[in-house]
């Protein structure tokens, strides 16, 4: 099947969910079964297709050479000064996120199998549209398509949260939508500024990301008083958009609300993929195109990452709602990724990139499992849950697996990412910053390690309360029953999912996983173990692109650090400057061959 061009393959993968959405809509009249089965079929076909494309990429010569793959480019506005094309393609940076989107969409569909019974057509159509949008974001090679798909992810989620969510869904949907939209509009302004700057220096208006990267490298935006600090302003504009998405504390307050009120399938996609789009934006745009501003802001953003870790962990500690606890743990884990990214150290950046996938897997798994618990017991309140291990052992096993992955237990995927991030951060703190910054950096790095302990604390505490110990049943739902820790959902307002069909809870209280739940979680569990035990194949594809995209920012940072040392070249500076030169002391990266730093 080698005649099947990769570009067509990519277009097919993105188009399949769209076609599937139409099919699901058409089959709407045939009832719930038909709709959800067709949605599941679409998700499976898309996943297999996407998986095949990923495999083809990994074996392709372009991947080895670090070139983009499956590129298709349609002229949109060509002529005169304009060279605007709409292009799609994959490269090392987007390949894993692309695959993750397809995988998590299947999880989202399967996890919604049972609970979504009201207006299923709308739900599955929106879910499939969301999948197409997520795939498109990572496949976009030009700013227009990136932005279009970026916004396109918001619309289905708005409706998914607003219609099929829980009690505060309206407020959550509106807050999520407007907050994210406001940020991304500012980001778009920043991107347009880059496009216009590039146009004024190269003579053509192009939105192609590769051209813009090269253009801003050749003609960097001014980072000086005469230039009006344009690079920093644009960086802040992009920061506004991406920081809200990531989310970087203190722009995170939409996340707990949106995650808690979203239906389980929405939460899976939200936590699993959409948060990663923010970091992807930093990697694709801010770091390569605005290296000096990135270097200037790096210490602050490094600090913000650490603040996010600790803040998210501390607030998670006192949560009584299990889903809210996991939402705050997401904030905390994204803090690690931000920290690793803005350490601007190759090891840390590779770790942060891998951690995107890791967090996608573990957070999606945790939210899916919380949704399953909610389906069975109709409560997410930790106080009202207990002893689930006896009633649903396999659910417990999987929850513990994803918990350990999220904590960073060695052997599972979370450890690899966390370790690389921390190692790189310590490298940066110890040898890569000006002496005046060393203490703050070390304090921050050590605090991040403390964050690991906090992470274990709240997760294990929650697991112990919810799964082990005495069996606690929430008060029976009935005409008079009401849930203590969770606002009553007895009033079935229009469109809210009902729990009338309680297929769980046999007479002996056992309510373990159904086939579709196992199918939803099994692939995630497989990857959790796979990445944890053999991370090298997952670290290798993005490595070249990561190095390329972070190179200018890293050198700019090194320059800043050197000039802060009073222009006197010191041993630290020598190390930092030589980081990109393979001839001298090689930095410790897992993807280069293991070099032992022996004297």
């Amino acid at each position: 099947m080698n005649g099947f061009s990769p570009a067509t393959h990519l277009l097919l993968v993105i188009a399949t969910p769209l076609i599937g959405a139409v099919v699901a809509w058409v089959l709407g009249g045939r009832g719930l079964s038909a709709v959800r089965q067709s949605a599941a079929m679409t998700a499976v076909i898309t996943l297999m297709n996407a998986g095949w494309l990923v495999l083809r990429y990994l074996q392709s010569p372009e991947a080895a050479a670090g070139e983009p793959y499956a590129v298709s480019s349609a002229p949109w506005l060509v002529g005169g000064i304009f060279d605007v094309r709409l292009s799609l393609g994959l490269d090392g940076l987007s390949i894993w996120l692309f695959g993750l989107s397809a995988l998590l969409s299947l999880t989202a569909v399967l996890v919604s199998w049972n609970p979504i019974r009201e207006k299923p057509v709308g739900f599955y159509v929106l879910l499939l549209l969301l999948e197409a949008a997520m795939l498109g974001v990572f496949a976009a090679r030009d700013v227009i398509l990136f932005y279009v798909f970026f916004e396109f992810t918001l619309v289905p989620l708005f409706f998914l949260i607003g219609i099929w969510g829980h009690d505060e869904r309206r407020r959550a949907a509106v807050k999520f939508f407007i907050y994210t939209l406001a940020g991304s509009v500012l980001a778009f302004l920043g991107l347009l500024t880059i496009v216009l700057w590039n146009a004024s220096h190269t003579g053509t208006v192009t939105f192609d990301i590769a051209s813009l990267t090269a253009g801003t490298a050749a003609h960097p935006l001014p980072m000086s008083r005469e230039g009006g600090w344009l690079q920093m302003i644009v960086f802040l504009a992009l920061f506004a958009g991406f920081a809200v998405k990531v989310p970087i504390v203190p722009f995170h307050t939409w996340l707990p609300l949106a995650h808690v009120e979203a239906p389980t399938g929405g939460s899976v996609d939200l936590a699993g993929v959409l948060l990663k789009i923010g970091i992807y934006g930093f990697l694709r745009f801010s770091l390569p195109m605005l290296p000096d501003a990135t270097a200037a802001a790096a210490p602050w953003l490094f600090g913000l990452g650490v603040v996010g870790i600790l803040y998210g962990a501390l607030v998670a500690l006192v949560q009584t709602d299990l889903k809210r606890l996991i939402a705050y743990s997401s904030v905390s884990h994204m803090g690690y990724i931000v920290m690793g990214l803005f350490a601007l150290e190759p090891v840390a950046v590779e770790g942060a990139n891998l951690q995107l996938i890791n967090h996608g897997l573990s957070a999606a798994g945790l939210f899916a499992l919380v949704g399953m618990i909610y389906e069975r017991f109709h409560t997410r309140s930790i106080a009202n849950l207990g002893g689930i291990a006896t009633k649903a052992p396999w659910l417990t096993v999987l929850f513990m697996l994803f918990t350990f992955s999220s904590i960073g237990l060695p052997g599972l995927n979370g450890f690899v990412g966390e370790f690389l991030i921390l190692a790189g951060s310590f490298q940066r703190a110890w040898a890569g910053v000006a002496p005046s910054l060393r203490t703050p950096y070390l304090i921050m790095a050590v605090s991040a390690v403390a964050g690991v302990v906090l992470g274990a604390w709240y997760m294990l505490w929650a697991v112990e309360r919810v799964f082990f110990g005495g069996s606690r049943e929430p008060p029976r739902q009935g005409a008079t029953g009401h849930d203590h820790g969770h606002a009553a959902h007895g009033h079935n307002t229009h469109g809210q999912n009902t729990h009338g069909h309680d297929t769980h809870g046999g007479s002996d209280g056992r309510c373990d996983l159904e086939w579709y739940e196992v199918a939803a979680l099994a692939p995630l569990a497989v990857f959790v173990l796979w990445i944890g035990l053999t991370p090298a194949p997952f670290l290798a594809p993005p490595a070249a692109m990561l190095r390329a995209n972070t190179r200018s920012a890293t050198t700019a940072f090194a320059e800043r650090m050197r000039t802060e040392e009073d222009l006197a070249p010191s041993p630290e500076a020598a190390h930092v400057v030589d980081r990109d030169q393979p001839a001298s002391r090689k930095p410790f990266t897992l993807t280069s061959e293991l070099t032992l730093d022996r004297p």
Partner: protein
Amino acid sequence: MTLPLVILAVPSALVGWLLFSTNWLSHFLSATPSLTAPAVASTATPHMFHMNLAIQGTLAAAIGIVIAAIGHLGRRSDGPQMERFLGPLQTLFANKFYFDPIYSALVVRPLEGLALVAAMFDRYVVDGIVDAIAGIPVALGGIVRRSQSGLLQRYALAGVMGVLAIVVLLAWQLRG
């Protein structure tokens, strides 16, 4: 139960001498790729076996064994005997050096308090700011909305005043 212990006791006694006199373990471990290898290698004696440390450790263990032997041997190791032997230390040992309460007071409770403060801060301050910012357009809209009164007289008045303003402006521009 005693037989396995006896069997294991022999290598237990010998393993330290075996591994460290031949440096086998340290050679094996030093082959691990390490981020701190350059720092360790640059110290004066990277592979030294620190004898005084070993002696101190062994001495502490031996003293403990001797004390326990004095306490246990020759008497039945029953509760009241041990209590009298330990004397005032009894309560200290029984409460595990009060380590748990100290830990709880020094680390756990403060962190839980901090977490509560953080949660309050998040809910009221950070989220409060976000909601306040979200309220600005609503407030502005409320103010501007007052012009939509539905009273035709007000609209007519606004129209006339607008025309007047334009005329005045034009006249002033043309004069100058």
